[in-house]
């Protein structure tokens, strides 16, 4: 069954602030943002940022996929948001990957269609730490020149996986990296170099 963890203390304003932080990160790929507002203690094995973003963004219209049998997380998300938990990653609007090694290949998540590229998955990947200014070299919309993002605990093969994702543009998935309270984004529009 699983235990139900607490939800957002202030659902209206916490969700708003955290969405704005996510919007900042998504529109400025590679920038690391610490989520503002209250972050409830997450159920195993989610990190606070991943749990808070799900609470603020998903509902009955956006199916969620978790990478494995996580009864506490699954029950908490269902209880607070009403989102359905799906067994196939390809059916999810939001996917959470808690073990980085399970991220690839990205093709198993919904890619959208040429008519509707927005019908694609937003993948939240939990990592050990995030730091701007070193690491992967990023270019593209949202970035003045180049940006750099260091991802602690990134899965093997992440860079070629993201490059293939970029080549599928406008199809593809958008990645939200979450470490503790921090997030950074790598949307499909970003060119990534090791």
């Amino acid at each position: 069954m699983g235990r139900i963890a607490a939800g957002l203390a202030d659902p209206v304003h916490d969700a708003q602030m955290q969405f704005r932080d996510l919007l900042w990160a998504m529109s400025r790929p590679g920038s690391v943002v610490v989520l503002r507002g209250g972050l409830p203690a997450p159920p195993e094995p989610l990190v606070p940022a991943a749990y808070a973003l799900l609470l603020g963004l998903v509902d009955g219209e956006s199916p969620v996929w978790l990478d494995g049998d996580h009864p506490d997380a699954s029950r908490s998300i269902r209880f607070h948001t009403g989102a359905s938990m799906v067994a196939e990653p390809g059916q999810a609007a939001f996917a959470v990957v808690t073990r980085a090694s399970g991220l690839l290949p990205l093709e198993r998540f919904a890619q959208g269609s040429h008519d509707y590229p927005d019908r694609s998955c937003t993948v939240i990947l939990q990592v050990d730490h995030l730091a701007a200014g070193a690491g992967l070299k990023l270019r593209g919309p949202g970035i003045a020149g180049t940006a750099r993002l260091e991802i602690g605990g990134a899965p093997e093969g992440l860079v070629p996986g993201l490059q293939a994702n970029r080549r599928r543009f406008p199809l593809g998935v958008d990645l939200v990296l979450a470490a503790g309270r921090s997030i950074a984004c790598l949307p499909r529009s970003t060119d990534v170099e090791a």
Partner: protein
Amino acid sequence: MSGAYNFAYLDEQTKRMLRRALLKAVAIPGYQVPFASRDMPLPYGWGTGGIQVTAAVLGQDDVLKVIDQGADDTTNAVSIRAFFRKTAGVATTERTAEATVIQTRHRIPERPLHAGQILVFQVPIPEPLRFLEPRERETRRMHGLADYGAMHVKLYEDVARMGRITTSFAYPVKVAGRYVMDPSPIPKFDNPKLHDCPALQLFGAGREKRVYAIPPHTTVESLDFEDHPFEVQRWDRPCGLCGSTDSYLDEVVTDDQGGRLFCCSDTDFCRERRDRMDEGR
């Protein structure tokens, strides 16, 4: 703030739906994301799309500015500001520099925007190909295939008939080298400001149920030809109030004797310049 409304009017599920759409809009620059536009307490054409986008992003600490054709004091701008003061209790301003969220109808402020700002455009018809191809299924396919030949033919026909591209507002742009986008009916004078802008630009079309976005520092090119390059309007006189020679001017009829005044359409920009002139006096 009135306690009878949820914060910023919309219910939370509607905001989540809009927020999910906006995230995809940012990730696919220039692509029009469908969303379930709600009935708003004002008619289509009065900025229902922009209002819904503003309501989805707005927070308690935001400072909101609303302009209509550059002016803070026109009916549409005044009532949208009052709407959010009432339903969200947010601070409002007429000063571009102080605003964190700026909702606009048909202009981009003259003062350069900065990274801490979001510009929300009200959009009547988001589909740049709509007057060339009325069928939604076909325009969607054309965007999917990046098949924009018809748009170039349209601009070429302008050149063939009139000797120049006559489109002067809602001038089509290509975003990040991929999607052709309607920048809303801003004068083409404002098109260069879309390019490499430090602020996030969001577009909302309420009747047509679409949102789209230009992330900061994104390449935005106005469509043109090598031998007919894109150019913006120029005036042969300065603003009659502040003397500016590089802003967008409105022509105002001042009497019934044929009197006319050309003055800045951006009222805040014009006021700021006049205040500075007064200080220097």
